[in-house]
């Protein structure tokens, strides 16, 4: 039973337009959410995160929105660039240890293609 769901396996967007990647979760205990970007033959790299006490976090062209009542988050990339083409994974953290380091629960990913 998937706790983090990315229902769109792929997305194509024209260069310069907005890319919106969606993620839904089922576990209300999750309190920290992250987006990772993965290129072929490389490990995922951290992109942006958001704590459950916020509803928006912005970093340059990347903005993550969190709707706790809907258990939904989204990643907006604007303007999209061809170099953004990659697989994007949504991940959530359910801290149960005081240290705060806990395994992440990942979605299956969405492959974004930005067309020039």
């Amino acid at each position: 039973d998937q706790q983090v769901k990315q229902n769109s396996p792929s997305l194509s967007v024209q260069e310069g337009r907005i890319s919106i990647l969606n993620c839904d979760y089922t576990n209300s205990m999750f309190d920290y959410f992250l987006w990772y970007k993965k290129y072929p033959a490389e490990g995922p790299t951290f992109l942006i995160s958001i704590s459950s006490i916020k509803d928006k976090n912005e970093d340059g062209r990347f903005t993550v929105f969190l709707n706790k009542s809907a258990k939904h988050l989204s990643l907006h990339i604007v303007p999209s660039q061809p170099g953004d083409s990659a697989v994007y994974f949504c991940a959530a953290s359910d801290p149960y240890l005081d240290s705060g380091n806990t395994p992440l629960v990942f979605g299956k990913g969405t492959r974004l293609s930005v067309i020039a």
Partner: protein
Amino acid sequence: GAGVSQSPSNKVTEKGKDVELRCDPISGHTALYWYRQSLGQGLEFLIYFQGNSAPDKSGLPSDRFSAERTGGSVSTLTIQRTQQEDSAVYLCASSLYKGSSYEQYFGPGTRLTVT
């Protein structure tokens, strides 16, 4: 500084053989994680080491899987009597808890193919 490294990058093995996958985390990172990504799937948590605490093995799919972390640094994931369903990319990550940051840094992965 150096990131997380993993070796080998690719491993092809025959069904029934044992394999060892190695992870060198970022120096000073106290937490180390193993995940795997099977074809068309997300990253699946396997095992987690935090400092000197007993590892969290709750994600290991069977008793054929084991891992150890020596000296709080290098980790080895061992799969005994490999099966074809073990074929996947095995990813290692490490992290250093900083306040509310849960960022994990991933290695490039080991692609395991069981024939």
